[in-house]
């Protein structure tokens, strides 16, 4: 890149996981690049970088969104939730525990995106059917697990949340 082609840096305000950040970003950055390379939130993964894999999934105002094809300006004034914002201070989200217990994460590359899609599903549907889970996760590729253990994890987490018990206890019962 030549010096006169230097990207225009814009100062923007972004709300991520409840924190408000004032940051300078090149105007052609995606939300994913901003999260990873400006804010240091590297949980959201850069897989295909073109909408094909779902590894970069974050929630935008609660809806699963591919941050790799979202210009960062489109996130201004909206609530961004990334995998770093899924757990609460007391411990992991039930989905995170459940995925651990069922063996639903292997290499882990797809896991942050899967968790965000699954969390959005459980926010609106506390007892999803297997088919509803499949559909909600149909935009997240996993090359390791074969998906079954991921579906089991979502079912386990849903039950744990309904019964207000830790997933490990539900599994034992």
């Amino acid at each position: 890149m030549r010096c006169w082609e230097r990207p225009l840096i814009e100062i923007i305000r972004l709300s991520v996981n409840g924190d408000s950040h004032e940051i300078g970003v090149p105007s052609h950055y995606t939300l994913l690049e901003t999260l990873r390379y400006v804010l240091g939130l590297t949980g959201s993964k850069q897989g295909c970088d073109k909408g094909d894999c779902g590894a970069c999934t974050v929630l935008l105002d609660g809806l699963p969104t591919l941050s790799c094809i979202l210009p960062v300006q489109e996130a201004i004034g909206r609530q961004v939730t990334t995998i770093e914002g899924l757990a609460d201070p007391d411990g992991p989200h039930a989905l995170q525990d459940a995925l651990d217990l069922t063996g639903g994460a292997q290499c882990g590359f797809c896991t942050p995106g899967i968790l965000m899609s699954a969390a959005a599903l459980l926010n609106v549907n506390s007892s999803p059917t297997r088919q509803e889970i499949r559909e909600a996760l149909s935009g997240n590729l996993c090359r390791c697990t074969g998906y079954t253990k991921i579906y089991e994890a979502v079912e386990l987490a849903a039950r744990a949340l309904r019964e207000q018990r830790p997933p490990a206890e539900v599994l034992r019962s």
Partner: protein
Amino acid sequence: MLPNFTYERPGSVDEALEHGSSEGAVLHAGGTDLLGCLRDGVFSAKKVVSLSGLEELRGISPTRDGGLRVGALTTLTGVASDPTIAERYTVLAQAAASAASPQLRNQGTIGGNICQRPRCWYFRGDWHCLRKGGDTCYAIAGENHFHCIFGGSGCYIVHPSDTAPALQALGASVRIASRSGSRTVPIESFFLLPADDIQRENLLEPGELVTEVLLPPVASGTRSVYRKVRDRGAWDFALAGLAAVVTMPGDSVETASLVLSGVAPKPWRAAEAEGALTGARLDAETIARVVAASVAGALPLEHNGYKVALVRGLMEETLRALA
């Protein structure tokens, strides 16, 4: 990383048209197609003009004539989950729900869906093909498994949209704004074939933008359905698809609209099949005639002859389900 550009988010349609008319400007609705094009260098942009601040282009509302107005910025999720669309324009709800993935449907809009660029891998790749201003269509002698069997000449893309054939089967029209005013065109004449213009898929001029899609009222007793065949169960473009809208007040079909996706450079009306269906009883004999008529004039390339069989199968399955 994306190439360098400046970003504008106008607050009104007039302002968007002003920005959109400047040299090197491209429009951004949901960006799900645009960002891929920019990243892969299919075309370039000096300025990206985002439509996302134009609230007036979002949402679904009834029109005075009993039809429906769908703002161009309505997301595919919004279209697929709208109760009126699901009930009265079922084919459109099904088409929107079948496109891409949940995340892409949350981001992608209906305006962007009908204006998206083709997925031909030569067009998307490093080849300077006819559609990009070069002098060769690499698909003719190349890997043409996913190319068209109808309407090709010079260039053999298929139109990638799932909602466009549904809209065409419903008789929708498209409202287009420019700095000199606005016009409404039937969606049938919105799309172009390579023979009309080898570098464009629709008649939008630079600086024009789609503001809404207008659906006419539906006659009572109308049944409609969208069926799509793809390589995997989700998240894929149509190898072939069929949008069917049929009215059948008694035993026989009164009107039939059959529009194919995935097989031509624009949504492809199976006119001979419609002719064979209209006025006929929906029995096995009619279905056989309609199926035969649906592939009349098909000209497959070396590797896409299977699409002829897919169209026949889609037609037969769909009509049996409607019978």
